[in-house]
């Protein structure tokens, strides 16, 4: 009995000593980590307590202390708010469409680039194709205006000169045209950069597989279908799931840059709702509630995506 106790004490002592040695050897690493940890605490975590605004009737003039708690009332309100429902519907619809149109294009582009023979041309065109990813949405929208304005846009001028149309097409000023233009510009902006990931995956494929396929008499298409695509399946699944996890998100800058009065019906998405109700309209509680809803659903989607991805035998995201 006595012996057991001393052994336990001894063990604890030794463990403490070991930890002391470990810490004496490694405290500098923790000192380094303090900087980034403090950074996220001050600029990110410190904002979390502000989420309680969603459960209050927050008045900026009264502050936290002077505002009343209202429980889930704000959430009940937003789900009866026509503006919110419209923003939610638009966000989901446009994100799904973005995914539907935007997901396959980088894959196809990567396959084409991989099959491209002329090396110098390949390098130059890759450089050019990646470019739009590095330009801001303001610049892209400005250039788009130069191309798509009904009266003075280059495309409309061209079509008119060719006699194809009499009146300019309202690419960016009528909501259905806008939806198509907005989506296609998004695809265009991302296709080059998105293809890099797939090209990297293709580079990793064992050359022997292609040799074997060639010896078996496989043609080019057959090799793409039976070697390349199966080999990059993992990358495709991971990216698809990752993108599905982001379907609640919204890109304020892209929407803001392409926004105008005529297309408000479709352009009105969650990011715009939060900005207009919250900062512009000073309805802090409502905007915070919508933001919290968006963050929570987003987190849930990412966690689900990670689970599904792992279940399918792919690398998880987290």
């Amino acid at each position, binding site marked *: 009995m006595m012996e057991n106790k001393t052994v336990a004490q001894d063990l604890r002592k030794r463990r403490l000593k070991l930890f002391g040695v*470990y810490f004496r*050897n*490694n405290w*500098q*690493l923790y000192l*380094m*980590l303090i*900087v*980034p*940890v403090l*950074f*996220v605490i001050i600029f*990110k*975590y*410190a*904002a*979390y307590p*502000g989420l309680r*605004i969603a459960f209050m009737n927050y008045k900026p003039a009264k502050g936290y202390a002077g505002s009343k708690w209202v429980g889930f009332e704000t959430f009940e309100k937003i789900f009866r708010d026509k503006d919110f429902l419209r923003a939610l519907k638009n966000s989901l619809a446009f994100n799904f469409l973005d995914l539907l149109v935007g997901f396959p294009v980088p894959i196809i582009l990567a396959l*084409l*680039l991989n*099959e*491209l*023979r*002329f090396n110098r041309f390949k390098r130059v065109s890759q450089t050019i*194709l*990646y*470019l739009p990813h*590095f330009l*801001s*949405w*303001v*610049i892209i*929208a*400005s*250039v788009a205006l*130069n*191309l798509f304005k009904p009266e*003075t846009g280059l495309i409309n*001028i061209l079509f008119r000169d060719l006699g194809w149309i009499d009146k300019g097409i309202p690419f960016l000023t009528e909501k259905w045209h806008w939806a198509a233009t907005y989506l296609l510009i998004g695809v265009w902006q991302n296709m080059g950069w998105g293809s*890099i990931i797939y090209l*990297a995956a293709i580079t990793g494929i064992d050359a022997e597989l292609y040799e074997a396929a*060639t010896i078996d*008499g496989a043609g*080019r298409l057959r090799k793409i279908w039976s070697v390349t695509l199966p080999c990059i399946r993992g990358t495709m699944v*991971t990216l698809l799931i990752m993108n599905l996890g982001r379907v609640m998100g919204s890109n304020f*800058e892209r929407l*803001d840059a392409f926004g105008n009065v005529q297309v408000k019906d479709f352009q009105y998405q969650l990011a715009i709702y*939060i*900005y207009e109700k*919250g900062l512009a309209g000073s309805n802090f509680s409502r*905007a*915070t509630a919508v*933001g919290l809803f*968006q*963050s929570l659903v*987003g*987190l849930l989607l*990412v966690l689900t995506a990670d689970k599904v991805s792992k279940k399918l035998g792919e690398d998880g995201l*987290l």
Partner: protein
Amino acid sequence: MAANEKNVVRKDNIWHGINRVRFADFVIAFVILLLSLTCILPFIHVAAKSISSDTAVMSKKVYLWPIDVTFQAYVSIFKDGQLTYSMGYTIIMTLLFTIVGMVVTTLAAFPLAIKNLKGRSFFAFILMFTMYFSAGLIPEYLLYKDLGLLNTMWVLVLPLAFSPYNMLIMRSFISSTIPDSLYEAAHLDGASHFQVLGKVVIPLSKPIIATLSLFYAVGRWNAYADAKYYITTKSLQPLQYLLSNMVLNSGADAVSLSEAAAATSTPEVLQSAVVMFATLPIIMVYPFVQKYFVKGAMIGAVKG
């Protein structure tokens, strides 16, 4: 005998498969060419417009080649001074942002790259969680207000300066290029962790530092939503925000520059010049740094 013959035929096929440029190759090249043109012709059009005469632009004759070349619009921009000031300000702000971002990122990536660090996954979780769950616009706005950051340059420099994603890229670069045995050797020689970081890790990580610095810089240079949220003082607005006010919203700013230049340029030409003024810095630097971006994207792809 028959088998032999078959072999000969097959060799023949391989030969053709590898060396002959076929019709399909030209089709592929043509498609890639078209896609590349969509990425470059729009900018050539805007550039051409920006150095054409007003009458040529008004009569809609300018396609990809300037007509009656004049640099009047650019002269107006420099005379007006608003955009040149904003560009200088944005360059300084972007540099500060990049430096802060890289310091914080390195201080997170190096310790977390050491596999037997105690509490490694705990710290990684703390740093990454903000990527998946954000407090949202209003709580962050109120926080930055309480911190006294609103309407200062620092609200653009600090809150976004640490990107967990970039930290992940750097961490996987460090742990894949520097073997743990190297740390052990350094410690046996009596080197501290700070010395290892300064004398071993950073020199060996130069390529990834270049790449991530560019990621940070380009991200900062292009972003303007935070400026729209947090900054009302005009002299503190970054270039992209000014641009969006001038070209996209026909707000007060659109008028202010065209007033100064009213005598010389139409809004069309002037707007094209403004867009080119903000685009050219990126387009000029881009071809030289492009390979770093691709490297970063590749590492990110392996361990995103």
